[in-house]
């Protein structure tokens, strides 16, 4: 499982190597970065509640309900959605730009 996860990350970065394990560890470490960069400590004041009563059923209502019910779950949903959407769109646009006849292999580093 861990090997698969590493391979997945290697694919994302387009590279190979065990050093990616370190990247995973540093994902946790980078927490400090964001805290310091403006995230700060968790808020103590209550977050507002979204009124979902009059909302039509759909994705927006579902997202609002998750937001109201559990902020930790909402946080995880944000990360998962952004990662999956980013990976899917990256794959899609990569294909599209390849169709323009652009050579998408390794490039020479010209200064």
């Amino acid at each position, binding site marked *: 499982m861990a090997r698969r996860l590493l391979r997945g990350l290697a*694919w*994302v*970065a*387009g*590279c190979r*190597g065990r*050093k*990616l394990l*370190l*990247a995973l560890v*540093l*994902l946790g*470490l*980078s*927490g*400090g*970065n*964001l*805290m*310091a*960069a403006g*995230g700060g400590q*968790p*808020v103590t004041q209550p*977050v*507002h509640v*979204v009124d*979902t009563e009059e*909302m039509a059923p759909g994705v*927006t*209502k579902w*997202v609002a309900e998750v*937001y109201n019910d559990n*902020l930790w779950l*909402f*946080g*995880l*949903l*944000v*990360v998962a*959605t*952004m*990662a999956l*959407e*980013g990976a899917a*769109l*990256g794959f899609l*646009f*990569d294909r599209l*730009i390849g169709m*323009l*006849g*652009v050579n*998408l*292999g*390794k*490039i020479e*580093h*010209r*200064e």
Partner: protein
Amino acid sequence: MQAFNIYLPIAGIEFNVLLLLFIGLAVGICGGFFGVGGAWIVTPALNIFGFPMPYAIGTDLAHMGGKSIVSTIRHGKFGNVDIKLGVSMIAGTTVGMELGASLVMYLERLGLVESVIRKLYVAFLLLVGSYVVYDYLSHVLRRRRAARAGASPLERRTFTQKLQRLRIPPMVEFRVSGITCSLWLPLLVGLVTGVVASVLGVGGGFIRMPALIYLIGCPTVVAVGTDLFEIMITGSYGALTYGVKGRVDLIAAMWMLLGAAAGAQLGTVAVKYVRGYFIRLLFAMTIFLACASVLMKQLEFQVASSILILVAGTAISLVILILLVRGILKERAARRGLQDGFWREPDG
């Protein structure tokens, strides 16, 4: 335009989808090209169109994680991501950010935080921008002199080379960047950029990208790709921490990411057609515009400052798009030439 308005339940406002796509596209192009997160464009742009500031910051950070994945995938396939270097730096950056936060608190206790940080920010942007322009101009002059003499340009000994020659174990080879140096160098550079980013309250891309070039000695495109790799990791954590605080409008972030993913792809591919020094020059222009925006904000011209940054982001994105289209056309023409029996190296 009303037809494109959607309700954003968490921010509690109606917002135009086309605007979200457009902001995403512009910041995606700049981000993929320069290796920056682009908070300097997104946050004021969202805010000026009615997004409450805390949600503008959180939504920006959330989409940044997704957008950096797109750019990192493409830069990785181009061979522009030095994971070993990125990992070495991020450890130093983390410690640096914490030290910077402590320094800010100390300045706060002295009552100096506002005045000191504002001045530092403007001075820092001016310094970095000016150095990049100076470096570009001296590079151009060297090339011209060499062309006149009919020789290849002489590479001068740089401060980076001096840093690389410090033989403090462990020595590490960063193969993608093509450099061998003491592990302490990226760690220390990460630490310093972390402190500066934390004190100035910026994400770090604006600082790390030039630091990777001028202090570590990375080729420009590797600096861009490696910086995006770091942003991918920190951006993902940013999405989580702001999400948990309830400051992310997920619907807005999803729409913005759609535009940003397209932009990131375009900006990243544009790097292929441009020489490293030209990326640096455009980056310096961007820094000056960001600096002008900060100055205007200090002079209480809030709206004008946001408009300036939005217009600047759009203009820079357009320049990058023009470079991309020109490059693609040249590449296709060169390939056709090859098929017709002759080959001409595409310049640019």
